[in-house]
């Protein structure tokens, strides 16, 4: 959904999104990494199961709740990536295995 501007390329780190290793800009957030390489949906809601993407990217809306290194309920827009970080969408209720 988002793409690096051609003149913005710099150092990268490798993160694992839903089991797939991808390169993302150093210093970017887990939510930004998902917007670059994810399937466009970063969580499904516990109420109706609708898909959502991050909305505000500044820590306010909690739409970017995701699973980071196995830990559910992380605000992806506030977490800076690091080498080998495992990032996955949060499906339904936190911790529920779907």
């Amino acid at each position, binding site marked *: 959904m*988002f793409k690096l501007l051609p003149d913005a390329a710099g150092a990268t780190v490798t993160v694992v999104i839903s089991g797939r290793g991808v390169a993302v800009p150093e210093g970017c957030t887990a939510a*930004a990494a998902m917007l*670059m390489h994810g399937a*466009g*949906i970063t969580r499904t809601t516990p109420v109706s199961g609708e898909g959502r993407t991050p909305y505000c990217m500044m820590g306010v809306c909690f739409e970017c*709740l995701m699973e980071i290194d196995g830990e559910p309920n992380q605000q992806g827009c*506030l977490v800076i990536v690091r080498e080998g970080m495992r990032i996955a969408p949060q499906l339904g209720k936190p911790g529920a295995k779907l």
Partner: protein
Amino acid sequence: MQADLAIVGAGPAGLSAAVSAAAAGLGVVVLDEQPVPGGQIYRNIETLAATRPAHLQWLGPDYAAGVALLRRFRECGATYLPMTQVWQVGHDGRVYYRRNIGHEGAVGIVHARKVLIATGAMERPLPVPGWTLPGVMSCGAAQTLLKASGLAPEGRFVLAGCGPLLLLLAAQLIRAGRPPAALLETSYDLWGALPHLPGMLGLPAYLMKGLGLLREIRSAGVPFHRGVTRLVIKGPGRAREIEFDAGGRTFTEAVDLVFLHQGVVPNGNLALSTDIRHRWDELQKCFQPELDAWGRSSSDMVHVAGDAGGIVGAVGAAAMGEVAGLAAAADLGRIDAAALEQRSAAARRLLGRHRAARPFLDRLYRPQQQWVAPTDPDTVICRCEEIRAGDVRRLVAAQNCPGPNQMKSFMRCGMGPCQGRLCGLTAVELIAETRGQTPAEIGYYRIRAPIKPVTLGDMAALDVPSRHDAVNP
């Protein structure tokens, strides 16, 4: 950790307050959620200025102005805690926080003699049918991705809503070589704003900037629809189409992404949670803390500066931060009243000019009623609990529900993870409209700590004497 002044938020207000308070001799601690200082407005400015000079050029001089402020902050001697979430501020001056968000965190307390809340602004939601679909984000989110990581939207996208940021983002994306497919403006009232024009004339550069952005958008050939009266985003599964009415006609655009914006309001949950007195501002259509000219609230402990106290813009926020930092130093006896007057004089003049300019902008882009109280009953207003506008209207009418707190207990609206941040103002407007009252009469959600997610383990790890210990030592 001890501090004379704990500042929550490292945007223009918090940073300036840190600089002026530290210069006046206070021991200052700044706590901020983000990994680097600058807030949302100067997001990532230090790294970007060093590594992406071309981007600094097209993001514009008002963004680049952050470089100087950041330099002064780095040299001011304040203790800076990044990636730190504050979940509670007590009237005893305790500031409860969790460091290192997302990683092995550590909890702690700053014991402060004064607390300055400088949590800035957030975008006012624009609840329209389909705004919860994947691919719909806020304009601020798109701008944050540009600044923080040089990421731009892919495919075909539309910007919709109102406010200066809508135009600024459009211009920035045009300069970045990614023009939007269309710009849809929902609220704009030049005739209503004109009586406030004299106040705006104190900041001629801002007026010229606004006109320049409009010229840039037009000359780039981006279709600009003013006076949009209806907006629907359609799926299925993700945003695929946006349908809107303008000038008596219905238009449809195929889209991959939609960016919404409806001006900004105080990012207020921390201030609200301290129970300082708030009031409704009809021009800015939001609740704001009641403050004196120095940022003092109804509590001796709590001061507020910047957009968190009512929208003043980045430069106004920095000026107010400077004033509030000095006032805190005066209240704590580090400088006398004459020094406070004298040292803050320039900042107060600057703040005065920015405050005087606000009514023109606030009125020009004040959201019309239909955009703050959705008429379509199926429009989701609480994104967390998926409560719809019609649910709220029906409940209020059927149960004679008097306000947002009762409504919340009935239907969980505002009880999800965002703690009402995204639905609060919409809920208030819907209830006010249904009851035929004003938002001032309706009031707001009662916001309680913890205002950020915190685990029981985090709380248990805190070194605080329990109430039980105090009673039976």
